[in-house]
């Protein structure tokens, strides 16, 4: 009996501090891991020229200033293209989470554009695993330059082009995101009878984070049909640099256009001939 009491006391005094060593929090640990959405796949809603799978938070307004210089291959006479510029200014607004609407204007062809972007599926981890985000985009462009040829009837509808995109992307690791962008573009009026009105293109883009605030980005679109043979596939590489409320996107590209119609159908420059230009996007986000 004595042994029983002694050993009881011994075990109790030895074991109590041992128990206290363990984490108290383990006792209330959730048995089910909750679902966690994967966010911040890109620093901005555009990779370079095209849309990324990234959205804006509800109530955010993104003022974007896009600027493209002239061709670097022009050399010192044009200060490697810095003497020339085209721009696009735009406002994107997220009225609710998962929805983004935007409106912009490019200086080239005085073209207006508007788009709607909806996130159908957001990548998630934990309880519900969803390996990809799926985002749908649809937009419209309208050239407002006076008609060049007024000897034949011109219709307002001839100014319009439309595009639809499905963005499927995955933030594979904290540093690496990749996405595919099947794109359908329709132009109401084309330059040549041999040009297709409907163009199907597939894009691939991504980013590799260099530091928390700097990321390398790339974007490539291949058009499968209907391209006039002087057209090239737009290829762009750049860096996203984030400072507080701004994201600067500095890049090199053979595409001059800053909307889907323009960069998919009007890219005539060739990387292999050094026909590339420097450009930058500035994104400033306000909370309304």
């Amino acid at each position, binding site marked *: 009996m004595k042994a029983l009491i002694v050993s009881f006391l011994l075990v*109790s005094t030895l074991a109590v501090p041992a128990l206290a060593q363990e984490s*108290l929090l383990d006792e*209330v640990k959730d048995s089910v891991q909750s679902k966690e959405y994967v966010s911040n796949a890109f620093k901005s809603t555009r990779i370079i020229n095209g849309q990324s799978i990234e959205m804006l938070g509800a109530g955010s307004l993104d003022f974007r200033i896009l600027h493209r210089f002239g061709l670097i291959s022009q050399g010192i006479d044009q200060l490697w293209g810095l003497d020339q510029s085209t721009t696009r200014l735009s406002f994107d607004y997220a009225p609710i989470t998962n929805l983004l609407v935007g409106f912009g204007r490019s200086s080239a062809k005085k073209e207006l554009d508007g788009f709607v972007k909806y996130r159908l599926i957001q990548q998630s981890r934990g309880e519900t695993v969803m390996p990809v985000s799926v985002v749908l985009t649809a937009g419209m462009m309208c050239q407002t330059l006076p008609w060049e040829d007024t000897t034949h009837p011109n219709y307002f509808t001839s100014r319009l082009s439309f595009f639809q995109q499905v963005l499927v992307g995955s933030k594979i690791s904290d540093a690496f995101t990749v996405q595919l962008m099947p794109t359908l573009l329709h132009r109401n009026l084309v330059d040549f009878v041999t040009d297709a009105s409907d163009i199907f293109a597939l894009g691939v883009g991504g980013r590799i984070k260099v530091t928390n605030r700097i990321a390398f980005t790339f974007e490539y679109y291949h058009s499968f049909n209907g391209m006039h043979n002087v057209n090239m596939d737009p290829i762009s590489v750049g860096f996203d640099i984030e*400072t507080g409320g701004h994201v600067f996107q500095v890049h090199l590209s053979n595409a001059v256009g800053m909307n889907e119609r323009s960069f998919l159908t009007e890219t005539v420059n060739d990387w292999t001939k050094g026909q590339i230009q420097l450009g930058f996007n500035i994104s400033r986000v306000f909370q309304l």
Partner: protein
Amino acid sequence: MGNMKKRIIGLSIVFGLFALSSIASAQEKYFTKSGAVNFDCSTSVEDITAKNAKGVCVLDTKTGAIELAVLMKAFEFKRALMQEHFNENYVESDKYPKAIFKGKVENCPDLTKNGTYDVVITGTMDLHGVTKRMTAKGRIVVNGASVNATTEFIILLSDYAIEIPSVVKDKISNKVKISVSLWLAPLK
């Protein structure tokens, strides 16, 4: 040692463990899974505040041991972009998902007795991969079944290797005021 003695010792160890498990499950522990943990690192230029309502805390009133964990991604900001930057650039939530405080409430009161108790909490805070000792003053108010534990303290971001880039130096305060309010319930 005799066979009988061995058996008694063995038996008593079993009894001891039984007794222990009953001690462990006795009504001395309190917890919450919805603790409010808010912080403020505003400057005259920018208001930066965030709220987290998912703090998990367990308090053992017998030993005074207390632990509090918060998921960094559960901090909610008024501005979505601020929240993104907080997670991506400052606390690096993917790499360091939780902030955990482990410590002791000195002279932990009996939470079955009504009263207002001023306490001192000491321990270590693990945030952004850095573990640092800290002390804070707190208050526990017991009114029947309602037990509310609160504290407020200041940490320096620089202590936890959270860097503020020079361009936003006057927008973000290195001194962060953290306030905690926990409504504790008995842990079954």
